[in-house]
């Protein structure tokens, strides 16, 4: 089983595919324009521009002083001047640069892509939080977080279905569950927010004091899995770990 579990990997591959497409389009476009539309000139601290800006300031000063003289300087064609296709001038709101068709194009196409991504994300969401009728055969197990350890409560299930023990190698608490059985983990906390995260399966939910939240867990591969705390809860937040062991 790949990291994050099956549901995650399927979506991840699809999203990565579209991300690559969007990313490639954007970056190729950017790199292309950065090269093709560059200019080696445009030394605006050079003499010509300096004169031009002094001229603009002079014009404004004269206007303020009430002198209404209009004058133009003959501007020769200077091939080395920085091209000013939109005739940008200080104090003048520049000429419109617009193309409605293009704008609609890159509004509608991303919108369609996003609707599609939303659509494909819907079903996996339902799989993670199944409807009540799909959970009639599920077994309830209590998981309570407390600073700074996990408390598992098998609630009268047989020890084949659910068992709590201690791992001899590491000293961590072990919750043993059975393969292919559906479990509803009822999460709560005795003090602050915690969040059990079964890392490999990519499942987590906050354990909130004063209420019950749920993780629906149907293990589909045997092994010992790492569970850690994924909501900051104080000093030993990093050390609040346990093991979920799935057996046949």
């Amino acid at each position, binding site marked *: 089983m790949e990291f994050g579990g099956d549901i995650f990997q399927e979506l991840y591959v699809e999203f990565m595919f579209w991300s690559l497409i969007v990313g490639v389009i954007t970056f190729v476009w*950017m790199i292309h324009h950065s090269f093709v539309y560059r200019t080696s000139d445009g030394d605006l601290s050079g003499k010509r521009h300096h004169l031009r800006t002094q001229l603009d300031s002079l014009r404004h000063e004269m206007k303020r002083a009430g002198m209404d003289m209009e004058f133009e300087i003959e501007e020769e064609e200077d091939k080395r001047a920085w091209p000013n296709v939109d005739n940008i001038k200080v104090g003048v709101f520049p000429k419109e640069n617009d193309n409605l068709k293009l704008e609609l194009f890159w509004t509608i196409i991303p919108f369609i892509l996003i609707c599609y991504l939303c659509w494909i994300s819907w079903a996996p969401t339902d799989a993670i939080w199944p409807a009540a009728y799909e959970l009639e055969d599920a077994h309830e197990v209590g998981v309570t977080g407390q600073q700074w350890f996990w408390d598992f409560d098998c609630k009268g299930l047989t020890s084949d279905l659910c068992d709590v023990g201690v791992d001899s190698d590491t000293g961590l608490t072990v919750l043993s569950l059975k393969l292919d059985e559906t479990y509803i983990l009822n999460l709560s906390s005795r003090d602050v927010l915690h969040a059990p995260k079964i890392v490999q399966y990519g499942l987590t939910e906050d354990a909130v004091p004063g209420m019950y939240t749920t993780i629906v867990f149907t293990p589909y591969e045997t092994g010992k899995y790492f569970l850690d705390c994924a909501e900051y809860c104080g000093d030993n937040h990093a050390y609040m770990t346990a093991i979920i062991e799935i057996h046949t």
Partner: protein
Amino acid sequence: MQLRNVWTVRAMVIVAVLFAALMFSPEHEARPIGITGVDSGCYCHAPDGPSGAVVPSITLANGSELPENYDPGTTYTLLISFTGGPAEDYNPDRLNTGGFNLVASKGTLTPIDNTTQIMAGELTHTDAGNDQQTWYANWTAPTSGSAVLRLMVNSVNGDNLATPDDSWNAVSYTVSGAGGEAPTMKANGLTVLFSGILLTAILFAIALTYVFYVRDPESFSWARFKPWITHWLTSTDHKSVGTLYFVSGLFFLGVGGILAMMIRIQLSSPGNDFLTKDEYNSFFTLHGTVMIFLAAMPLINGFANWIVPLQIGARDLCFPRLNAMSFWLQPAGAILLLTGMFSGMGADVGWTGYQPITSTTDHYGATFWLGGQVLLVASSTLTGINFIVTIATMRAPGMGWMQMPLFTWSILVSVMMLFISIPTFGIGLIEAYLDRTISTTFYNTAAGGDPLLWSHLFWYFGHPEVYVVVVPAFGVISEVIATSARRTIFGYRSMVYALAGIGFVAFIVYGHHMLTSGMSPLLRFVVMLTTMLVAVPTGIKIFNWLKTMHGGSLVYRTHTLWALGFLVTFTLGGISGMFFPAIAMDVHLHETYFVVAHFHYVLVGGTLFGLFAAFYYWYPKITGRMMSERLGILHFLTAFISYNGVFWPMHKLGLLGMTRRHHTYYIRADEYSDIIGTLPPEAAQWNFFITVCAFMFFLSNLIMVYNIISSWLNGRKAPADPWGGWSFEWLVSSPPPTPSFAEIPTLLNANPDREPGRLTGMLERIMTPDPGDEGEEAGH
């Protein structure tokens, strides 16, 4: 009465009020957290401090002293015991007479009977071992280094009540490595942090003094210094306040960076103990808070203050004194925030401050943290009022709404979002503050409160907040790309609508921060949809920027490079952000380093890079000097490359399952080898690589600081319009005089007149000042 006496009396009254407030403020006792929530029959770690009557000790099982030097790898059987205290005043048959907690900094502790157990990596007693004063356990010596054994004991009076009549004490033993190795010098995390901050502050003060001196070597006298400092302390001119924001923002950017370096040193290797857990937790809290509230927002405010009045052709903001107050609330808030840290018990709650831990943590710095942020909320709210009114009413003639420069538009949208969302945060903060000080129960479940209330209040602010910091960067990039390419920005109207769209949608997506907090599936879906939709206006903006370059003539200056760098990193950050709304992926990625990577890509790669571009773009205007292009390009290359080296691998670490906000991490080895879901060895290598790159990124930004100072003193004089921009700030000289405009200019329009739309027409009728009032608004 003379004016001077009035001011003295007022000052004394204020001091007296403050003194009275301090005297009568509620007290908050802190005590080290012991075992919570378990009905233990003992008042663990009673609040009165350690009791001298209780004498803990660790010896070898045969009663002899611990050896000075251990034999590497041998197992010693320890005898853990205590004498004295309430346990001995009663019949030893009583229950719950004693408890202990033993931590070994090196080597392994193992229980040898059912009276002790390992809990959360520390050796403590079990239920069965609750009724005694002596315990045995094994300690296996490490192969090298000094081991510190720290023992805390409880002497319980056995009346089975959790009362303060129980006593506690603690003791430490050091057992050195073979050969009488002296205990290794261990750098104390807090000491390193404060040394770093102090060093920054001293260098900063030296730089300021040097600049002051160089400007006029004759001026090192009180007669010249006093007006200079008075000007800076009391100015209400938007340019001075803007500069104050810059200086404060850059200083705290450095402080936040030092905090980040501490975090990265701690995370550079697995199982590291450079920072204690407390220190690590408070450092990441303060890193987030300082960076967002004391660095990013002030720097944005600095540009808003400097540039917006210039761009709209106003002489100042509408409420200049309010503006100055907004600024001065910031250092006040900063002092409160950092005081918690200086005490050693800084807030350890994350910048998100989730409940109930924020109300129950024994770190009293959390109270300061909450109080300081209330001041910052006030500062932001006032800024919001100021800018909205200024932009609505003080635009120059000829500048309708649809003729404003895009930077001004971005500031308007940003402060509108801020103004609407931040008071909510203030409410949450005040509730938490009351919870901590006078025991209200807003977030206390046992009394009917709800911790999720904070989550809603915080994220209703928190999500628009992150757009508040990134939207001005959008404005800067629009200006920089358009000017660098010497073209009008493509699609001005859609850029405005996209900004407005982002501003609106920001408020309906905040639930995506709470996707794993027990939401109903329907709400989860709605949040997923709206969050994905926000990519549409953002995408429009990115494509418009790219199209702006089309047909232009790009000149590569440092600000251009930063704008292009922004396009790269912000696009990557936006794309990685798209993975989270797909909720089935969110459950795997939540609270992992994938999240850290995403938000640093948009916050640093977005906001900070936008601010860098703004620095290089507007520096000539603000200071009247050109910055060194060579240093600028050097800064860009080193910073951009090392930045990607820091945050790109974090995507990988997140996918591997490395959880964030963890004091340390362990890689799969030895006894963990068959547990699936632990980190592979490459995670350690990536973390080390990230730390090295983080140091490079930190140092590279010092190039910009040096550039700012040296260009200010020696840079080439800047013309009014060095880059060829069109907006009004390029009309005035560099630096602008005060007042900036002797006569308010009129904006001309290269486009033929078009009939304003109905909405615009309505707004313009309400908002445009009458022609007669132009010259008089500013400077109330």
